[in-house]
Every structure is written in structure tokens, then in C-alpha cells.
């Protein structure tokens, strides 16, 4: 009892009351509209939750999510590694930058959706083709941020490191350049995560072979709107959750960064 009493003012202090009120209005209206109006077009919230419960219990949603997550993890990690390596190379070498940038720029300005049919023809409709879609969606965001972060690293830091005997390229990268580039790199990774989720969804919806995308287009095709909403729901949660995760990691680096900049001043 006391615990509840204590927790109410702390909610209020965090400004939760307007959130709760607004949420109640939104979801209340939604529920009422769904019940009174055409529940095929707008299923009531309760029906969506029931569908979500059913999909989870039957194992359909978990297994689809697992398949999608595997695809996302494979494509995203490939994008992170390759984007990072090429970002470092183009950030350190002007010649490499000028040689490679037209290709990466072309890839960056082309919407991944438009490439999906082509990529799948070339690399197959199996897991491999789908991974490449996710990879292409995410890689340039990583590359550009790593490139920009390393290129714009403060030259005085490099000079100081050199005068303290850090002379090898690897040493410079490890001790100075990459650390200075952390904020930019993290923002690039956040962008890449969002794009990778989109790439994953596009590849799966296009193929209708497996994962959450197939679940969605399957229920869409038979007009089961409640199940449709229930299977769409994990995607924004996944996107926001991953972005929050990246932001957390970023804050950890950030705290270290404030410390470093204070020390350098």
C-alpha cells in the first residue's frame, strides 16, 4: 500500500499524467471506434491484443521473430564490419576515398526498396539474398559516419599523439582517431539500425517466404486485420528498442568522452 502511495508522486514528477490521459483518450477512442464501426477496417485494441496473445502462444510470432532477428543480425553485422573497414580506409586515404566514393554514393542515393528485386534475382531468394538486402540498406550509413568521424578528427590530438610516440597507423587509429570519431560513428550506427530493420521488412514482405514480413503479408492477404496489426506491432518495438540500445551504448562512450575532453583541457 505504502509503496503505491510513494510511487504516485514520483510518476507525477516525471510528467506521466498527461501521457496516461492522452493514451487513454487515443486507445479508448480506437477501441470504441473498432467496436461500433467496421471492425474489419479498424479492429478494436482488445481484439489486437487477443490476436497478439494467440500468435505468441501458438508460437507463430516467436518463430517468425526469431527468423527475422537472425536475418537482421546477419545483415547488420556484415554492414557494421564492412562499413567500418571501408570507412577507416576512405577516412585515412584520400586516393581510396576518391576511388570508392562514387560507388558508395550511388548506393546511398538509391532507395534500397528499388534494388530489392534485382538483388534477389542476383543472389537468390534464399537467406543469402535477403542478408544482402539488409546489408545494402545499412552499410553506407556506417561507412559515411566512420569516414567523416576519422577525417574530421582534431589534428591537434593527432599531433599530440605523434609527439608522444604513437606513430603507427594502427596506434593512431586505436588511441586517437576512432575515439574522437565515436559520436559520429554512433549516430551512423543508429541510422544503419533503422535502415536495416526496413531492409529486413522489405526483403521478407517481397518474398513472403518467412519471418515477420511473411506473417504480415499473409494476414494482410486474407484481411485478418486484428492479426495483421498484432504482427506489425513487433516491428516498431524492435526499431525503437534497437535505437534505444544504441543510444545507451553511445551514452557509455559519451561519459568516457566528457572525461577525456575535460582531461585534455
Amino acid at each position, binding site marked *: 500500500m505504502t509503496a503505491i502511495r510513494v510511487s504516485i508522486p514520483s510518476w507525477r514528477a516525471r*510528467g506521466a499524467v*498527461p*501521457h496516461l*490521459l*492522452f493514451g487513454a483518450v*487515443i486507445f479508448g477512442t480506437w477501441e470504441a471506434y473498432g467496436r461500433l464501426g467496421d471492425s*474489419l*477496417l479498424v479492429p478494436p485494441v482488445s481484439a489486437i491484443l487477443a490476436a497478439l496473445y494467440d500468435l505468441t502462444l501458438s508460437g507463430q510470432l516467436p518463430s517468425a521473430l526469431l527468423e527475422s532477428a537472425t536475418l537482421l543480425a546477419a545483415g547488420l553485422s556484415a554492414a557494421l564490419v564492412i562499413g567500418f573497414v571501408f570507412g577507416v580506409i576512405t577516412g585515412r586515404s*584520400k*586516393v581510396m*576515398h*576518391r*576511388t*570508392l*566514393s*562514387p*560507388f*558508395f*554514393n*550511388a548506393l*546511398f*542515393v*538509391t*532507395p*534500397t*526498396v*528499388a*534494388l*530489392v*528485386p*534485382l538483388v534477389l*534475382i*542476383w543472389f537468390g531468394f534464399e537467406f543469402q539474398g535477403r542478408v544482402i538486402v539488409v546489408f545494402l540498406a545499412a552499410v553506407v550509413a556506417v561507412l*559515411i*559516419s566512420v*569516414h*567523416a568521424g576519422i577525417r574530421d578528427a582534431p589534428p591537434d590530438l593527432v599531433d599530440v599523439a605523434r609527439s608522444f610516440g604513437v606513430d603507427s597507423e594502427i596506434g593512431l587509429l586505436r588511441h586517437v582517431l576512432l575515439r574522437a570519431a565515436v559520436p559520429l560513428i554512433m549516430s551512423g550506427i543508429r541510422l544503419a539500425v*533503422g535502415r536495416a*530493420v*526496413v531492409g*529486413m*521488412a*522489405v526483403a521478407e*514482405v*517481397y518474398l513472403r517466404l518467412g519471418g515477420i*514480413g511473411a506473417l*504480415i*503479408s499473409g*494476414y*494482410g*492477404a486474407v*484481411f485478418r*486485420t486484428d492479426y*495483421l496489426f498484432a504482427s*506489425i506491432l513487433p*516491428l*516498431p518495438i524492435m*526499431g*525503437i528498442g534497437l*535505437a534505444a540500445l544504441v543510444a545507451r551504448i553511445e551514452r557509455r562512450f559519451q561519459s568516457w568522452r566528457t572525461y577525456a575532453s575535460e582531461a585534455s583541457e
Partner: protein
Amino acid sequence: MRTTEELGGAGVAPAPRPANLVRRLVAITTRPTVILPALNLVLFFAVWEYVGRQIDPILFSPPSRVIRVFGELIISGELLRATLVTVGTLAVGYGLSVAVGIPVGVLLGRQAVLGRVVNPYLDAIYATPRVVIVPLMILWFGVGFTGRLFLIFLGTVIPIIVSTAVGVRDARPDLIEVAQSFGALGFHVVRHVQLPAAVPFVASGLRIGAERAVVGVVVGEIFLELTGLGGLIQLNAVRFNTAEVLCSVVVIAVIGIVFIGLLDALERRVSPWREAT
């Protein structure tokens, strides 16, 4: 965004006088920022041509074939028709997003509580890939223009709303106070203080919105209604006409580049007192 432009190499040079044009052109083309990518592209196309001729033409088209197909598509008018459909939808959808997004953004920026309360929902919609709501669009609007329009609108309006709101909210309070002490009404404060202060934010929202609008129009044309350039991609992809697909992809990329370029030019005009980035 500055980074992508710089990756592009050639910066925006001030317009040269005609007399210097030739000399400037020579100087520009022999610059390493130009010559290296150019040589590299030549090499790339040469390898592609060579490899393309070795591989099964069903899977892979050498550039010579892509160019020939491009010519055929232009002569038949197919490409132009598709481009007009795509650009038309893009223009209407983007215009609608701007017309709704900026006023709503101003409102959410001025009403702090409302802005805070609405934000999670905007985030959730923003984080949902638009392909997965295509079935809903079909259900709600049918297979047609309205559904495709809504796909663009949904992705584009949110970044415009959010960044306008941030810009309006962060306008310097001292300037607002000065304006109010001179008797400015709410409308005047918005018009003369908050909106000018928000210009860079609005511009970045417009730019993100533009990128998303291009994606949205293609999603609509591939997944919702087979029409425009997206339709051209899909119809040819199922027949394994990779050259036709490539041509359409290139046109879409060019539309995106021109779109962003126009926005940049507009931003420089709207905020001449700021240094263009």
C-alpha cells in the same frame, strides 16, 4: 548530410565567366577529385561489360545492353510515362506532407505538453517500416493513388513535424520576450521569431522527409499498385529483364538527387544570412 555531399567530390563552384569557362573546365577535369573517380568508373564499366558478356544474359546485363534498353524505353515513351507518374505522386505526397507537417510542428513546438504527449506515437509510426502497412493501406484506401499517397505522407510528414517542433521549441526565449514586449501577438511571434529560428531545423526535416518520400513512392509502386517506375521495376523483375530494372533504378536515384539538390537551393534562398552547409 554535409558528409554525403563531400563524398560526392566536386563541390559547388561559383558560376564562372564565359571567357574562363574552358580553362576552368580543364582545371576541373584534371583535378584528382574528378579524374580519379572518372578513371575508376571507366574501369568499373569495362569490367562490368566484360563480366556481363560471360554470364547468362538472363541474370546479368552488360552496360552496353543497359544503354540500348534505356534508349528503347525512352523511344517507346514507357520510361517517360512511368517517370511522370512517379514524380507526380511524389510531388503531391510531399506537398501534402509539408503543408500539414509545418503547421502541426509549430503547434507541437508551442504547446510543450501536447508535443511531449504526442511524440511517442509519432516515434512508433516513424519506426514502422512502410512496407508492412501496405496491407492496411489496401484495406483502407483500396489499390490506387490514395493509398500510395498515404504511404508517402505517413513517412514524410513525421520528420517534418518533429524537426519543426524542435526548432520552434528551441527558439531563443529572450527574442520571444523582446517581441512580446513590443506587443507581438502569438501569430507574430511564430511568423517573425520562432519560424525564422526554426529554419535550419525545418530544412533538415524537409530533407529527411524528401529521402523518405522517394522511398515511400517506390514502396507504393512495387507493393501496392504496379505503376510508375516502381511498377516498371517489378514488372520487369518477374520477367528477369535486369536491364530494364537497372534503367528504372537509375532514374529513381536521379529523381532523388535532383529533389535533394532543389531543396538545398531553396534552403540557401530562404536563409541567405546563414552560411550554406
